[in-house]
């Protein structure tokens, strides 16, 4: 039982980064190009099936995406409640105190936006099943200039550091006596903006210092550079890179003619 899971878990991990990048790119493009609910839902199904075959189990999936699900549900509710309010040409499904709430158009729009968001989140989850440096290599091997690819990857690495820095300033403010729980909403917002200032300043400063440090250690001293590791696409990787966009194109026509 356990053994079985371990093997499954590897599948997405050992996949070459390029099919994953392709999946991300084609799924998010496809879901933005049309507003057909069935089509977007089918893309989502493809992504979920990929994740499940790739070895993610449902409880892990739920754990990873919980916070985002809450956000999406909230957005859905707000959208359905208020979209189309005050419009004369649509009939509201709900009347409260003379105001109309919940329109069919609103529900459809909210469903579409939520599905799109879910597609992007799930595609992101697939990307997460891989090493950041593999994506760097993949980008470089896709002939993207390495300075640019490097920047993207460093940016990704920096996100958790920025978060830690923000937590640190947040702690410092509280230790100097600021009680965030007692603040009113406006005070809270002002305090949170106050946290952003030092983070921004130090991020800019660090970017500056890091670029100098990198150049003194020889970054960009040669126009081209070589890599110890080369990513090799195996048959399955090539097949999947072609298959993913093909599935989305196929689904598009399927949905259109059904």
């Amino acid at each position, binding site marked *: 039982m356990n053994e079985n899971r371990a093997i499954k878990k590897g599948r997405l991990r050992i996949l070459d980064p390029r099919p994953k990048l392709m999946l991300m790119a084609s799924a998010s493009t496809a879901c933005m190009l049309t507003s057909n609910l069935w089509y977007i839902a089918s893309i989502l199904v493809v992504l979920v099936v990929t994740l499940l075959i790739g070895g993610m189990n449902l409880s892990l999936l739920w754990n990873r995406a919980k916070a985002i699900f809450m956000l999406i549900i909230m957005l859905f509710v707000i959208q359905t409640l208020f979209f189309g309010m005050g419009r004369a040409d649509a009939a509201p499904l709900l009347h409260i105190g003379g105001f109309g709430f919940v329109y069919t158009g609103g529900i459809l729009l909210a469903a579409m936006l939520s599905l799109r968001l879910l597609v992007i989140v799930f595609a992101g989850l697939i990307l997460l099943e891989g090493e950041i440096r593999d994506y760097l290599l993949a980008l470089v091997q896709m002939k993207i200039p390495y300075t640019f690819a490097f920047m993207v990857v460093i940016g990704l690495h920096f996100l958790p550091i920025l978060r830690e820095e923000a937590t640190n300033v947040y702690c410092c403010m509280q230790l*100097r006596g600021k009680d965030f729980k007692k603040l009113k909403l406006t005070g809270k917002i002002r305090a949170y903006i106050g946290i952003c200032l*030092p983070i921004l300043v130090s991020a800019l400063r660090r970017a500056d210092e890091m670029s100098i440090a990198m150049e003194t250690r020889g970054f960009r001293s040669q126009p081209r550079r070589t890599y110890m590791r080369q990513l090799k696409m195996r048959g399955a990787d090539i097949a999947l890179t072609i298959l993913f966009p093909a599935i989305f194109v196929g689904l598009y026509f399927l949905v259109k003619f059904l």
Partner: protein
Amino acid sequence: MALVAETITYSYGGGSSSVPPPEPAVDGFSASFEHGRVSAIMGPNGCGKTTLAKLLVGILKPLHGEVILDGTNLVGLTLAETGKRVGLVMQQPGRQLFCTSVKDEIEFGLKCLELSQEETEQRKNKYLEYFGLQQYEDRFPFELSTGEKQRLVIAAVVCMQPDYLILDEPTSALDRGRKRALGALLRRLSKDENTGVILISHDEWFVSEYADGVTVMDHGRIVCRKESMR
């Protein structure tokens, strides 16, 4: 009345089950830091001094054991409540500044204490002067030199006059004269104002000169303790 750590243990990143939990950064540490004393903590890099400081103010919660501040468990206090009684000067000066001017930085804590206008003004001027920062009053804190930032952070915490003061490597960027000034201040705070000072430092000269007792740590545990420096 003391700041007491009772066999506290903390380890980083034990959250996910796939990675084995690392060796605890602080491992069954017990100590009582009293009012009116400068207690030094020394130990090699990575032995858990910074982690201990964070546990003592409640930024980190111990996995086992508890921290008792004058008889109350830290668990029941918010960071703001603890911060008014226990001041913490962290290790990296640049990461604790968040105001747009040196003046505001010092006033931040004073305003949170809800002191009167003149008291705020008086304490601000006193500490600006003591740490030689008057001429920078209106400067942007991020533009100061490392040592100046360090003095500013210390001033911003000390001016709140907390009952306990924890300083994590407060002399790392200070020149000799500034070190002496800080040492004299710590001695005065502990003797005249009965503050409990916890001094984390690598600076053997500074510790031998100004501390009343030393605790040496390694691998998160106490290896030796000296109650008196004489």
